[in-house]
């Protein structure tokens, strides 16, 4: 087995599992601020209790996010040593900034938020919630900056020994790729947070307990959800797609399954890319739609894979195609569902519409899948490059760490993370069972 594949899987597996947690904390962070703000302004104790309930869920997620996040920083060195040696001067900066600017802030105020209620004033407690939210969003920003530089390297120079150097702090942070990706990604986190909150609300109402809280959760979840579910497609998704099309033509061609360049390119809604024949098997196509989405006119030519040298095609073509289509398909579902739910909420009919509550409840896993598929799209689309156009993935992994050493620790992580997943489920289940009224020690 090739060491390259193992090291890729190692990082892919651990980062995918890790990101299940921060996507919720980043989304929930914002929603908890909303709950605390209402509580502060109205003095309504119920909203405070609702915030405390979600604070407990947040805290569990936060810890799982922290412990699964530490391996990510290590793996740059352990599994991707040759990459780190050359790019550490750039990549290491946003990673260090994440620790310095975000984690200190986040951990300090989370401690205050969870343990300080009663010791600090109501206003200070609200402020802690805001700072926890800000901290988690700053953290997301620096990770996106790191990834954006690998997707779209800017503000760099090369030293005689091959190392990359940062030339400008601001250009690194304000990489246009990163800003678009950040907007899209954070909206994705809000989608996850709002679906989870709405699903718990729907669950309580369907079960007929904690109903007053169920209504609060649904209200906040659906309002945030409808905004985020629209914004995830337009403008953030749309702009990201156009930017990828300009800067990574191979990625967009593979995502869309466009083997041959076409003017008036159609959009494949479904199908299976066949690398052998260079065609899409069993396609369902909307004529001209792709040209329109990328260039705003139905006649524009879209570059297909045929114009790209074979050794620069993304290496996992069908997987990339599926990941992208799953993300886009689910995104469409989110918007439809949330628009309907928001309409029902506005008409005052949501809490009695059991079918809509069931749909909201059953949909909560889907944003996790969509966020994961979105990241797979971004990272598989970048292949075969580790740093786009500059360094191939095959040149970056640690070649002193053999394939089976890598496999050993990968299996170790898989076992450990299975256990963590089970424990996490038990903990969250218990919190939801106890509900917002529970008195906790």
């Amino acid at each position: 087995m090739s060491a390259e594949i193992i090291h890729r899987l190692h990082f892919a597996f651990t980062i995918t599992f890790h990101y299940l947690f921060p996507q919720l904390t980043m989304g929930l962070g914002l929603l908890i601020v909303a709950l605390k703000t209402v509580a502060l302004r109205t003095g309504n104790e119920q909203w405070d209790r609702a915030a405390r309930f979600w604070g407990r869920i947040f805290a569990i997620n936060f810890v799982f996010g922290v412990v699964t996040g530490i391996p990510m920083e290590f793996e740059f060195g352990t599994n991707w040593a040759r990459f780190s040696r050359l790019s550490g001067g750039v990549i290491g900066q946003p990673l260090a900034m994440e620790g310095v600017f975000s984690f200190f802030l986040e951990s300090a105020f989370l401690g205050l938020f969870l343990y300080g209620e009663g010791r600090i004033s109501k206003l200070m407690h609200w402020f802690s919630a805001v700072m926890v939210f800000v901290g988690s969003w700053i953290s997301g920003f620096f990770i996106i900056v790191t990834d954006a530089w690998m997707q779209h390297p800017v503000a760099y120079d090369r030293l005689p020994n091959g190392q990359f150097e940062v030339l400008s702090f601001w250009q690194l942070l304000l990489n246009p790729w990163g800003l678009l990706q950040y907007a899209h990604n954070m909206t994705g986190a809000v989608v996850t947070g709002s679906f989870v909150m709405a699903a718990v609300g729907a669950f309580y109402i369907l079960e007929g307990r904690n109903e007053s809280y169920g209504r609060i959760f649904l209200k906040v979840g659906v309002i945030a959800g409808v905004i985020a579910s629209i914004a995830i497609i337009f403008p953030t998704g749309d702009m990201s797609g156009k930017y990828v099309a300009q800067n990574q033509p191979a990625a967009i061609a593979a995502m869309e399954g466009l083997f041959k360049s076409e003017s008036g390119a159609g959009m494949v809604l479904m199908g299976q890319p066949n690398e052998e024949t260079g065609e899409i098997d069993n396609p369902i196509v909307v004529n001209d739609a792709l040209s329109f989405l990328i260039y705003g006119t139905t006649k524009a030519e879209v570059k297909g894979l045929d114009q790209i040298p074979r050794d620069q095609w993304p290496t996992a073509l069908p997987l990339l195609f599926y990941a992208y289509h799953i993300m886009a398909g689910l995104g469409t579902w989110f918007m439809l569902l949330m628009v309907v739910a928001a309409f029902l909420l506005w008409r005052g009919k949501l809490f009695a519409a059991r079918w809509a509550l069931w749909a909201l409840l059953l949909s909560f896993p889907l944003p996790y899948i969509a966020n994961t598929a979105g990241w797979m799209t971004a990272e598989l689309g970048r292949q075969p490059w580790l740093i786009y156009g500059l360094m191939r993935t095959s040149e970056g992994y640690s070649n002193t760490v053999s394939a089976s050493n890598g496999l050993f620790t990968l299996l170790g992580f898989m076992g450990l993370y299975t256990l963590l997943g089970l424990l996490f489920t038990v903990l969250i289940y218990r919190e939801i069972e106890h509900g917002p009224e529970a008195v906790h020690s």
Partner: protein
Amino acid sequence: MMGFVWFWLVAVMIVGYVVLDGFDLGVGVLHLFLVRTEAERRMTLASIGPVWDGNEVWLLAGGGTLYFAFPLLYASAFSGFYLPLMIVLWLLILRGVSLELRNHLNMGVWQTLLDGVFGLASLLLTIFFGAALANVLRGVPLQADGYFFLPLWTNWRPGVAPGILDWYTVIGGLVALVALTMHGALWLSLKTTGELEQRARRVVNPLWAALLCLTIASLVATIAVRPASLDNYVHYPVTFIVPVGVVASLAAVWLWNRNGQALKAFLASCAYLFFMLAGACWGLYPTLLPATTGADRDITLERAISGPHTLAVGLAWWGFGMALAVGYVVFVYGKFRGKVVLGGH
């Protein structure tokens, strides 16, 4: 000049990590032995509850700083210490999760199990960290391309082809275990009340005696294993102030703990950790990772330092960011100062 600055900035981050996460690791070890009742256990855990993950941030921030300031060192050391680092990661995961779970699963067997995992993971981590530092001081078999890969152990002797564990690094592990356990005991005597406070104070004594012996053993062993560690001290005799500081702070721990001045004793223990680490760094400088395969293969400051633009950019935000970070730390410790008060949170 930039090399000098960044070497010591990274050193400061490491000291920050050891001093802060050190006491909660020590508390983790101690609660296996020291705690008798459920109330005491809750008091013990509450004393680190609001701060432990902030303490762990120093590891990440320090790691990140090391990464961009010395990418060659980061790449070489992390891939070379692959297996032990993965074990460290698993231990950090188990420790964090068991501590968190414990607050939620209020059931007998679960709690015993989780307490055990938390304590054992803390204990192993202190040993791993000590052994890791000792590995760096001893040196590793660097190849010409700057990489290496270490087995967990070979013949237990430091030499050209050592393992992660040999008699020298085991001493390092024990120094860390005892030093941090004592550090944790001093924290507990500062933060807790009643019988637990008394027991924590008393347990410092045997730990202190063991630490004194181990400290001396480790100083002698370091000079024996890598005589070059003394060069800087001989060159700048004024820096012998560092080992003097080690001894003085250790003496101060004893005195203040005996007199029941818990805060001063804890701070003296912080000073001890500071002097030990500063002494080790000064013994290495300007080498970052010595090669057992010949000094020409050493990873030196000059070889590993990032380019000038990178460091200039880094310096621009680092000072500001760390000033903020220190502000939060002071703020949080200020908010939770004084003895732990139990009650619903």
